[in-house]
């Protein structure tokens, strides 16, 4: 259309350019690319858990518990279904929002704002883990174990502890990661080179944790 000899258009053309030239294929900082590769491999781990859950739920002949009742809380004298998980979801989305803003301020090299927003993100992440600890102890008190539970199929307990435990571990690691990087930002470790891409890399990890929760929320808690 534009009269060029190469008929590939737009995005497809950039792919050919990036791969065929005698240069590095991905035009991003190496740390960012490595984080992406880690996240892609982590995607496979969580996918194996969720596919395993699907298989276990399809094959069990025992009735599956009602997640919306199991995760209900007594509020104002009535039982509100799934409310604990809804609150945790909103906390995690909020933390993703503050992290996105931190990444934005990294482009302006605004150290104080980056530090503050990362700190808020870490605090929200920590409160998410706190609520998860509450959820675990509530279910354990009610007799839910990895091998049995009073609400139906015993597989419910093993999937619950494995999937939410592994996700909670990711959130906990993320909180530590955020705090370490926030401190380094404030201390001025990145001022010399003026390279703040570490904030975006940390942000990628944090948004991924939120992303995984979207799938856990849909398939484990709502399904």
């Amino acid at each position: 259309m534009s009269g060029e000899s190469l008929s590939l258009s737009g995005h497809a053309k950039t792919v050919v350019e990036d791969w065929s030239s005698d240069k590095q294929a991905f035009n991003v900082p190496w740390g960012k690319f490595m984080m992406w590769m880690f996240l892609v491999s982590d995607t496979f781990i969580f996918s194996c858990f969720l596919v395993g859950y699907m298989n276990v739920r399809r094959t069990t002949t025992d009735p599956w518990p009602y997640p919306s009742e199991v995760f209900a809380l007594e509020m104002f004298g009535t039982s509100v279904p799934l409310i604990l998980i809804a609150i945790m979801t909103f906390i995690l989305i909020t933390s993703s929002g503050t992290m996105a803003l931190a990444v934005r301020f990294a482009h302006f090299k605004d150290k104080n704002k980056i530090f503050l927003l990362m700190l808020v993100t870490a605090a929200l992440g920590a409160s998410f883990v706190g609520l998860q600890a509450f959820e675990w102890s509530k279910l354990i008190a009610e007799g839910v174990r990895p091998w049995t539970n009073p609400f139906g199929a015993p597989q419910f307990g093993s999937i619950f502890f494995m999937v939410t435990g592994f996700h909670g571990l990711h959130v906990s690691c993320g909180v530590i990661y955020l705090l370490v990087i926030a401190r380094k930002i404030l201390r001025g470790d990145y001022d010399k080179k003026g390279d703040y891409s570490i904030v975006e890399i940390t942000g990628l990890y944090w948004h991924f944790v939120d992303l995984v929760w979207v799938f856990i929320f849909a398939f484990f808690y709502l399904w």
Partner: protein
Amino acid sequence: MENVATQETESHEDEAQHPIGVYLKVWILLFVISGLSYAVDYFDFQGMMRWSLIIIFMLLKAGLIIAVFMHVMWERMALITAILGPPLLLITLIGFMISEGLYVFGNRVDYMGRPAAAERIHVADVIHHDEEHGEEAMEEGH
């Protein structure tokens, strides 16, 4: 010619130019969609309606997070294909496991029969919050 012009401006767009409004809008949108998916449970939609709504809201949220928060929509196509391509293989795994799951379930019903209690159990029938504490309920369970 117009196409070429828009491509030019797109490729020259710097990440620092993303207006803050984009993030705030997506943030609010994520809140709304999460509220809607919670409403699916709260108003107790069942069957095909429930499953399709859950999947739609999930994909919308995941798409927004990946595209905007993780900046994928502003990356070059070579990186996007490297990130989003490999996970597509999972569709094969899911397909195999659905077929395998149906087979195993069928075998279990054929050879071991369904368990005595085939009805789903309501939590209120097992846990009584008014009369006893959770710990006592656990002892009862043993």
